[in-house]
């Protein structure tokens, strides 16, 4: 059924192994136990997150967004087998000093559009950094939706935007211009709620860092 080759990446939460599934290129995402967490808490989080991730990947896909297809979900081994996407993590593109501004602008425009559609479908991402979005050449794909929500409020939506802004600041010198482009594309794709969500994102940013 499935054969394993090598490890592709180690994220914050999981190890990603290259695999095949029925002959198709796949990845196996195995959530790691965290020794620093109390066992019961760790088990609860792993189980919650793998279920959330599977459900939101499926629902985002149904809403017309690009996400990996779920090939298999093995709850007993906390393993998700996913379609392997041939894309480049946004982090790599955004922090590449030799990359052109036009390329970065194109990528964040697509990110804004995709996030607007995700939000319009009532899904928040919850961990929207450049390592969790792949550039597929003509569009972006979302990964790692395990911290997302299917019943998000303004706060969850606002946090998604806030995370994008912070991440751009961390990665690029032209963050401000890029965030403008991102927001414009976002607003176009989520016209009904964009104004309120952008306002909330601003509020989150300005929240007393010293309370």
């Amino acid at each position, binding site marked *: 059924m499935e054969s394993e080759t090598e490890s592709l990446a180690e994220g914050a939460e999981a190890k990603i192994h290259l695999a095949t599934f029925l002959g198709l290129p796949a990845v196996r995402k195995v959530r790691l136990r965290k*020794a620093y967490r109390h066992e019961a808490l760790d088990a609860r989080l792993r189980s919650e997150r793998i279920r959330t991730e599977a459900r939101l990947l499926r629902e985002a896909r149904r809403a017309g967004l690009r996400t990996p297809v779920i090939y298999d979900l093995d709850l007993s081994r906390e393993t998700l087998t996913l379609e392997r996407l041939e894309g480049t993590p946004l982090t790599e593109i955004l922090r590449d*000093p030799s990359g052109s501004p036009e390329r970065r602008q194109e990528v964040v425009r697509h990110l804004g559009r995709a996030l607007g559609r995700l939000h319009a479908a009532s899904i928040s991402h919850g961990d929207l950094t450049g390592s969790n979005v792949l550039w597929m050449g003509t569009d972006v794909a979302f990964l790692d939706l395990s911290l997302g929500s299917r019943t998000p409020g303004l706060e969850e939506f606002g946090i998604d935007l806030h995370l994008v802004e912070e991440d751009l600041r961390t*990665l*690029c010198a032209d963050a401000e211009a890029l965030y403008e482009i991102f927001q414009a594309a976002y607003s176009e794709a989520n016209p009904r709620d964009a104004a309120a969500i952008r306002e909330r994102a601003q509020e989150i940013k300005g929240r007393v860092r010293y*309370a």
Partner: protein
Amino acid sequence: MVVLGIESTAHTASVGVVDGSARVRSLATDMYRPAHGGIHPREAANHHAEVFPELVERALVSSGVDVTEIEAIAFSQGPGLGPCLRSGATVARTLAQAWEKPLVPVNHCVAHLEIARVLSGFRDPVLLYASGGNTQVVAFSNGRYRVLGETLDLGIGNFLDKLALSLGATFPGGPILEKWAREGRDVEALPYSVHGMDVSFSGLFTAARAAVARGIRKEDLALSVELTAYAMLCEIAERGLAHLGSRELVLGGGVACNARLRAMVEAMAAPRGIRVYSPPPSLCVDNGAMIAWNGILAHAGGITTEIEDSVVLPRQRTDQVDAPWRAGPSSGGEVSPP
């Protein structure tokens, strides 16, 4: 080079004298402890104004440094509580004028990172900063200090204090909660709130209060809260490290002195091959020595302020800080003690 540094962002008034090889020549600290309830900014500021003259005297005498050897006066410019910051800035201005020394503004959060960086010998570490009002993951990236993640509501220390106060403890509640937690047995499931690299504590606070109303043993509650809240801190630190591909972590802030948190951070770091450095408690909590050390770096980088421009910035953002002492556009440079 020797610099005298003044810290007063919140409840701690502190004066430190540090030299160019990051040797702490002296450190004099006095913490404001309200009789009851939480911190009152104005009362804290009055406390600071009262103790500063003696702290300066003590720091100077025990350093064995002569005033003529001091090159500059550094002070904590922000972020922090306005009245508290102003009391420290006033002292700094007075000394700068009286001794005719340049005045050097320092960002409090960056100072935590820089003192831990020089003491650890790490090149470009991520800082997990956990104190009363601040809960942040900070790193130097793309030419600036960046807040990778932070609390979206309460600071971890304020959260623990509030909870402990509501259980009848006095300020600061954190250490009392820590003592209770050591007697805890049964771990209660509580809300765990991580959003990307950010955390929030209000849901945990509400659930903890509800558990108290249901009659949970306070020792069990303290243990459950610590295990939950500290795991959240470990996770955002882990995410920050993974995000930047960094393998060095330093700790800062009063809550980062907590033994359980330190042990949990070690348990997070070890399997990832991440090195961790925790400063000794006196340099981990708010202190004048870190301000002095950052003052040395900043002064060597040409940063000074005129008296008339030396306003405090209670809401200064970490990414507003110029850092000529960190070379290179995208990664950390070497520390170059002058």
